[in-house]
């Protein structure tokens, strides 16, 4: 049997209620094409893409509209045919602003040819050409951070990769986009995963799925039956943050990524299931990454839905399609509730990394007063990295950034486990983030000074 429990378990972690039932059984629905799409040039980590169309241009579905600029960057394509209405600054779902290309869509446009040549016989093609396709198609890590996939898939020669981990943990509460993708499109995900392995030349494939998503695991196992392989599905104990790269690598392989290192340092690459699906679509169908699954849920939306929606759809359109928001809407979150970003308004467009949109009612956003740390140690128990959030946050609060740096605040990936359990309701993640921002700024300044 290919399905078995994960052999290891990382230290720390928390058990938030998974709150997934509202949308777990709802099939992905294709969103009717919105009249307007706001496609950001910065949907990935690294340099924003450079727009290569002008206002007034007509574009076809899948046409390249912004080119990757620099090594860590990704192409951006038009999700639908239409006319470029404007190119201007717009807010991103991660709380920043970036140049966005606004497309007035043309619903009557014929479907047309896929923009890239399909490669159904990818098993016979050189890994290099497949990698180029991934780069062309503008594929990024769709689990959250949005790291350009083609960069991740071309590790330096001295870092041999022997394990590819397909991340289907989806440990964030509320979200079901990856879960539904696995249930409904398991074969495509599986094929995408094999394509990635061919690019990497990796030995084994390990699939990591939390044990509360047995249906997804079953669907994938069925898909894997038809494609015999030495791959293996590991059911992870439901524990947040199993979906985090380093924790997952440990749970699945028992290897520990060195502090400050990358998964490739221990011979692993972790790819999200949505990314695998996008790779399949790009290679087999020749279609760039322009649409993704997104869960719209929460107690302040009328009809929670799992959408398959074009990138650039404004959250206002998504919410409207989901039956609209209720009057008691008080918080709007792009992403999951643990690591997602609260948005100031619905006038923000979804990106390649938007896996969910949560609408929380006023009852869930009670104002509270954070207190002094009472030293209970729950955050220390919860931290999957073994950091001490209590002391780090106090150092940051006292502006003792050096102390925070010496105590490895930079390793914090802001999973939020500490703040979730804190009985004093301290904004621990915000303290960490601020300390990290200060340190990054200092390091940048120091590097600049070195140069001059």
């Amino acid at each position, binding site marked *: 049997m290919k399905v078995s429990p994960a052999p290891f378990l990382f230290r720390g972690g928390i058990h938030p209620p998974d709150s997934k039932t509202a949308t777990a059984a709802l099939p992905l629905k294709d969103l009717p094409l919105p009249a307007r799409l706001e496609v950001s040039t910065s949907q990935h980590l690294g340099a924003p893409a450079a727009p290569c169309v002008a206002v007034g241009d007509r574009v076809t579905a899948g046409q390249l509209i912004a080119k990757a600029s620099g090594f860590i960057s990704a192409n951006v394509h038009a999700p639908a045919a239409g006319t470029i209405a404007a190119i201007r600054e717009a807010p991103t779902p991660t709380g920043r602003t970036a140049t966005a290309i606004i497309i007035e869509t043309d619903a009557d446009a014929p479907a047309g040819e896929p923009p890239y040549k399909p490669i159904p016989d990818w098993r016979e093609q050189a890994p290099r050409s497949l990698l180029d396709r991934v780069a062309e198609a503008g594929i990024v890590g769709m689990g959250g951070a949005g790291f350009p996939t083609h960069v991740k898939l071309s590790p330096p020669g001295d870092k041999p990769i022997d394990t590819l981990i397909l991340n289907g943990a989806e440990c964030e509460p509320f979200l079901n986009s990856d879960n539904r993708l696995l249930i409904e499109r398991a074969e495509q995900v599986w094929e995408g995963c094999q394509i990635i392995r061919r690019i990497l030349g990796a030995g084994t494939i390990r699939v990591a799925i939390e044990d509360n998503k047995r249906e997804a695991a079953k669907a994938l196992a069925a898909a894997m039956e038809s494609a015999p392989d030495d791959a293996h599905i590991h059911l992870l104990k439901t524990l947040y943050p199993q979906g985090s790269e380093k924790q997952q690598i440990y749970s699945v392989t028992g290897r520990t990524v060195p*502090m400050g290192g990358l998964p490739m340092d221990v011979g692993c690459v972790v790819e999200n299931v949505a990314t695998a699906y996008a790779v399949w679509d790009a290679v087999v169908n020749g279609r760039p990454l322009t649409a993704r699954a997104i869960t719209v849920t929460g107690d302040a939306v009328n009809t929670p839905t799992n959408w398959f929606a074009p990138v650039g759809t404004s959250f206002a359109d998504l919410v409207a399609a989901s039956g609209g928001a209720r009057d008691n809407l008080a918080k709007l979150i792009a992403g999951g509730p643990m690591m997602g970003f609260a948005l100031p308004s619905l006038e923000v467009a979804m990106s390649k990394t938007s896996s969910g949109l949560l609408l929380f009612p006023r009852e869930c956003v009670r104002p509270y007063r954070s207190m002094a740390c009472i030293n209970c140690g729950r955050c220390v128990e919860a931290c999957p990295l073994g950091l001490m959030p209590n002391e780090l946050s106090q150092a940051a609060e006292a502006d003792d950034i050096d102390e925070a740096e010496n105590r490895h605040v930079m390793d914090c990936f802001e999973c939020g486990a500490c703040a979730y359990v804190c*009985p004093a309701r301290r904004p621990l993640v915000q303290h960490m983030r601020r300390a990290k921002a200060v340190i990054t700024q200092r390091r940048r300044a120091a590097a600049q000074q070195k140069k001059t």
Partner: protein
Amino acid sequence: MNTEQQNTAAGPELVVGVSPHIHSGASVERIMLDVVIALLPAVAAALYFFGLNAARLIVTCVATCLATEWICRRLMGRNNTLGDFSALVTGLLLALNLPPGLPTWMAIAGGVFAIAVAKQVFGGLGYNPFNPALAARAFLLISFTGPMTTWSASCIDATSTATPLGMVKEAFKAGAPAPFAMDGGLTLDFLLGNMNGCIGETSAIALLIGALYLLYRRVITWHIPVAFIGTVAIYAAILHAVNPAASMPVHFHLLTGGLMLGACFMATDMVTTPTTARGRLIFGVGCGLLTMVLRTVKTGAYPEGVSFAILIMNAFTPLINRATRHRIFGAAEAAKREARK
């Protein structure tokens, strides 16, 4: 102003903050309330064994602590913190740590000291380095040694005016044999709390019930109580094995004095104790060792050492915290990699 907001804001006013956007619901209030609930059996035992005197002390201490907390916050111009119940816990713990015959005004002095000097001058809950109730007890013990070690006005069958620990210490100091044998009847009496002592410390069974509740509610972890009580037991066992004539058996040391109250409620006060499991074990062992040293060294000024032991270990807490930091995920691997280079 209102009309303008309506003009500009298209939707409702949204709250924007940093992730995570959900919370476990744990709160300081709930933790403190749990401690109060866990103390109820001990309070009941105190009322049963010491009657009105216990009621008088509990009411006095709680009222004093609450009032002092309110006044201090007022004077400092800060928010009212009566709602977090920490002053209530301090008041209860202080009362349970006092001998039944203590004059009311001394209890008031203790309450004021606990809140004003040991807690609020540091900025309130979370900042105090020493357990406020214990600091107040130590303060009273040093200032009013007589009343703090007079036990006459107490017990239902008061045959002696000293605590068992005091009687034993006096006897051994004088070179006499143990004043009583720890037979079954006496052990049961000690277990239930039928002896002289501070009003809340005598009933081991009531305190243990409370501790189990705290463990069940995950307010405390097992490390400190187990390490503390275990160390005392091992130390007492060794002492008894080496010299049975001049020492008391293990269960005597476990059931008498403030050990149960101290190990389950005072040494587990999270503000003043280490954060990591390892640190808590060290803390517990340190408390146990110090307690037994203070109890059994014949020349010591006080027959009981639990409160001082915990206070001294409180002082060590920052150093223990520093020494028992968790290993950071991947730090060892990073060091190895560095070494290879």
